[in-house]
């Protein structure tokens, strides 16, 4: 317990120091608040961003709905929604294709050239085409996020299937497993460590792409909000938005890593 507290305090030294210097320079008037607002101003702005704008009217809505009616919760929900839908579409297509490409030489030979050509194109480069194809709103954003999630999951799934130790296949065949069982009960679980690593990278990419896509195609979400704040020169709100993006990203990554630990509880590499 004392060790944990000590570790926490040690970890807090540098951030606290940075905040103190930042606050001091801002108060001393070294920078204009537009260039670099004080951390206290950012905190106040973040709080205002979080709180509901209207007064609570019990007749019109529940307390919870009211408490979450502020700009920040709805922006965060909008961004998260796009990430999840886009990721599910992208990973949902990548996983079966990756399994097929990993398991079959001929499908790999057919599909790999196209994959290799398309893979290096950053999802951001699809923005103009995404708008032409899907117009504005969620569809182009979901498309870009799906692209961002697709390739990491695909590449890792292929690698995962190819790295399945042949001895498991021999053991399963020896015990009487047919092709389908071999695939579902041996190849798929044996490649989960790779697939989940791809999922983690894919979620990370999806999160980058959602912020960018919100800057061009939609009118809510965290990416939209920080760009909007720039037009009013509200630097404190920009930074408040950025911090929210950081926290949401951390929460998402923690959730995926928890899921990993649960699904891979059989895996040797996780022995701590």
């Amino acid at each position, binding site marked *: 317990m004392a060790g944990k507290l000590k570790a926490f305090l040690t970890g807090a030294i540098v951030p606290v120091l940075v905040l103190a210097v930042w606050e001091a320079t801002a108060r001393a008037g070294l920078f204009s608040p537009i260039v670099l607002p004080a951390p206290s101003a950012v905190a106040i702005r973040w709080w205002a961003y979080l709180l509901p704008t209207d007064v609570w009217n019990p007749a019109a809505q529940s307390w919870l709905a009211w408490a979450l009616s502020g700009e920040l919760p709805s922006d965060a929900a909008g961004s998260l929604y796009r990430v999840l839908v886009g990721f599910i579409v992208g990973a949902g297509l990548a996983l079966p294709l990756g399994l097929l490409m990993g398991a079959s030489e001929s499908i790999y030979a057919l599909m790999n050239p196209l994959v290799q050509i398309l893979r290096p194109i950053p999802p951001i480069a699809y923005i103009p085409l995404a708008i032409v194809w899907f117009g504005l709103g969620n569809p182009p954003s979901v498309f870009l996020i799906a692209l961002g999630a697709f390739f990491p999951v695909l590449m890792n799934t292929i690698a995962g299937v190819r790295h399945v130790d042949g001895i498991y296949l021999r053991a399963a065949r*020896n015990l009487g497993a047919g092709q389908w069982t071999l695939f579902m009960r041996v190849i798929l679980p044996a490649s989960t460590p790779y697939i989940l690593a791809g999922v983690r990278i894919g979620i990370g990419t999806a999160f980058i792409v959602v912020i960018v896509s919100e800057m061009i195609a939609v009118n809510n979400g965290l990416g939209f909000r920080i760009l909007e704040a720039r037009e009013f020169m509200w630097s404190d709100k920009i930074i408040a938005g950025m911090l929210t993006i950081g926290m949401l990203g951390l929460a998402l990554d923690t959730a995926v890593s928890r899921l990993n630990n649960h699904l891979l509880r*059989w895996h040797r590499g996780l022995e701590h």
Partner: protein
Amino acid sequence: MAQIVVERVAKIFHSRDQEVVALRDIDLEIARGEFVCLLGPSGCGKSTLLNAVAGFSPPSSGTIRVDGRVVTTPGPDRGMVFQEYALFPWMTVAQNVAFGLQMQKRPKQEIATRIGQLLDMLKLKEFRDRFPKDLSGGMRQRVAIARVLAIDSPILLMDEPFGALDALTRRNLQDELLRLWTEFGKTILFVTHSIEESIYLADRIVVMTYRPGTIKRDQRVALPRPRDPASQEFNELKRELGMLVMEEQQRHAAEEMQLTTAD
């Protein structure tokens, strides 16, 4: 009639610029219920022969028959125990043991009963919900044995199953295997490079030569079980087989030396 019949089997591996004759002119008959050890130094093709009988890697020429049928694919009539255990790490002990029975589409109730019996028999009851990574090497090999016993194959193929275990665990599992063998009357083809292990276990020891792998000696072991490794007869046989294996080992070493100097 013999249960396993190996007839004029040869196996040739091709690599980039050379071919290796792993097996040549192998003729072998194994009767139902017999415990046979394949003995020889590494590289003598004993595992190659076992894999051919298992159906993983068919011979280049010649045939292998089991109960009169030519072997072409792996099958649950020939259960295999691997040196590296080959347990499915994502399944618990009970799930591993259940796998083969599920492949045979047995009723759930029957599978549960059978798993219970097998885990009891191999002293694994407390470990049924553990994953293989949490077990010692000896425990893992017990699970692997339970897994093949579950499918009740008449033939057990064992590829240096105890090679990676410490001496005490090894002796313990050897005794366990003999007990199971007596109880179930299975035919066992067991690969080892340990002379002592082969004398301790086998009815017959087939000594193989180093490249090309041929049968150098087919030795019947008539000592009554349980065998005492300290007894005079045991040690006379051990010395005799030791000389045979050592000749092959030296050819192996000499060839490796030659390869190293050629590089």
